[in-house]
């Protein structure tokens, strides 16, 4: 624009932007690309050589690597499915109950249910490990109270249950986030809309399904994609509860723990930054694909209502 060119350079704009851009670019963007780049190299004596896509080929097809990779990827997918099937529906129910008008003590419930979300994975992992441990009688005793003691087994110690148990623990921890976001979305529905529905005789469950649910779909969409990113980047809970080897027998191994072991090495293997970068790059592509899929298919089809 001609008029703009005559104006003096507005240094303050640069000053305001510079610190954030510098830190963000130097510590986040450049390392992200650095990691992508490293995945194209492999170790050669002291130095490194360009290996093209060899690392990816190794990861997918070399029997020593591919079994672990596909196992971690499948486990990660199952971890995500548990969250979608359990966390979001329960979150919606809790938010719907909390947002019902004239409900007393709602601030208390909200705070109490959100507390697990603020705890660190280390606390959560160990607390549940202790509670579910067959050594300490809490879980069996509790099941005994309701007459279900026969159901108890060391859930975290058996291959067929461990991952699902950890998924449910993670759901327990993070339920606060969908609950809060959906609660906020429900509160932002104007009273007139609800009143209009009531005038038309749409009340109770029908009102929820026909009026409120369509209005909170965008919030549910955002929660789903946040869950996706969070799950495919998870590490801490598994590491705290099951260690870096993601026992028993790698049945709880997800991409995060696989990346950690590969990069740093652990007991049986030595660390390999190049294969580590390759796994991190695969996680990057998976998350990117998920986010793009969401942005281009789900987000554009969601109807947004303006009030």
């Amino acid at each position, binding site marked *: 624009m001609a008029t703009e060119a005559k104006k003096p350079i507005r240094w303050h704009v640069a000053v305001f932007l510079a610190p954030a851009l510098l830190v963000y670019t*130097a510590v986040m963007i450049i390392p992200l690309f650095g990691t992508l780049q490293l995945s194209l190299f492999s170790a050669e004596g002291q130095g490194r050589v360009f290996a093209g896509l060899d690392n990816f080929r190794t990861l997918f097809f070399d029997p020593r690597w591919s079994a672990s990779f596909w196992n971690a990827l499948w486990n990660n997918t199952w971890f995500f499915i548990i969250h979608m099937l359990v966390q979001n529906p329960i979150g919606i129910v809790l938010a719907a109950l909390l947002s019902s008008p004239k409900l007393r003590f709602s601030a208390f419930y909200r705070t109490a249910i959100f507390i697990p979300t603020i705890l660190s994975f280390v606390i959560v992992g160990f607390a549940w490990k202790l509670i579910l441990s067959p050594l300490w009688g*809490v879980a069996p005793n509790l099941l005994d109270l309701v007459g279900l003691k026969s159901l108890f087994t060391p859930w975290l110690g058996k291959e067929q249950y461990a991952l699902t148990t950890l998924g449910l623990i993670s759901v327990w921890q993070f339920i606060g986030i969908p609950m809060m976001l959906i609660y906020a979305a429900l509160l932002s529905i104007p009273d007139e809309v609800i009143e209009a529905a009531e005038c038309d005789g749409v009340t109770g469950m029908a009102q929820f399904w026909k009026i409120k649910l369509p209005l909170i779909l965008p*919030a549910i969409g955002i929660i789903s994609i946040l869950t996706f990113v969070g799950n495919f980047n998870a590490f801490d809970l598994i590491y705290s509860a099951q260690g870096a080897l993601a026992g028993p027998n790698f049945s709880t191994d997800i991409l995060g723990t696989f990346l950690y072991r590969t990069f*740093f090495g652990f007991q049986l293997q030595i660390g390999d930054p190049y294969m580590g970068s390759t796994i991190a790059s695969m996680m990057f592509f998976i998350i990117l694909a998920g986010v793009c899929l969401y942005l281009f298919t789900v987000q554009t089809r969601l109807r947004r209502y303006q009030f």
Partner: protein
Amino acid sequence: MSTATSSLPRTIAAHAVLLAYTAIALFPVVIIVVNSFKSRNAIFRSPLAPPTTETFDLIGYTTVLNQGDFFLYFQNSFIVTVMSLFFVLLFGAMAAFALSEYRFRGNSLMGLYLALGIMIPIRLGTVAILQLMVASGLVNTLTALILVYTAQGLPLAVFILSEFMKQVSDDLKNAGRIDGLSEYRIFFRLVLPLVRPAMATVAVFTMIPIWNDLWFPLILAPSEATKTITLGAQLFIGQYVTNWNAVLAALSLAILPVLILYLIFSRQLIRGITSGAVK
């Protein structure tokens, strides 16, 4: 307004469900804290009972406080969290102000660039971040953690704060300009105080993941002098896993600070979420 939806049986049912879930949410926390005050025998014999005068015992706490450097770890976590929070809020607010206040070429592109980090986790760049920190001699310093967490917190901070800054009235800022205030003064004196509620929301969202993070302390600063409380508790628990008193006490000590912080900020957090974070 909605007499039809809040009849008595419905209300009771709602309370029953919410109470049941509250019990599920709090049970593990309560059981850990309660048992941390009991003697070893009582922990095993009656794990569900509250401590009595006979079973009350602080042995776990004395073990933890004598053995582990919990105060040092706590101090490290505190420094890292507060410093990162300060930089995220300052740099984030400055960038958000530039993006929402001025029209310049590449404005929206810049916004998009900064928003990328909301979706792509910084953890995926770990391999190269470690190399960067090794090259600049920052491994095993708190500075490394502060830098990483600042970068991690900035995208969301810029995103939320610029939404709020768009709502600050232009008349106010223009009045300031007519009075001869510089752009910097307008930002620090006029705009920053007005977006304080949004800053509190961003602070809570930024603080919790930093305080609880295990990945970066484990990788960038695992030395004794720079351990954070999360990493310290993790290692301590691993080491003393058979000393149940100590483990339960360590867990309780690690729960306490976040709990206090959350109770202080929770009202602000809820107000922040309901007034715009989802829109």
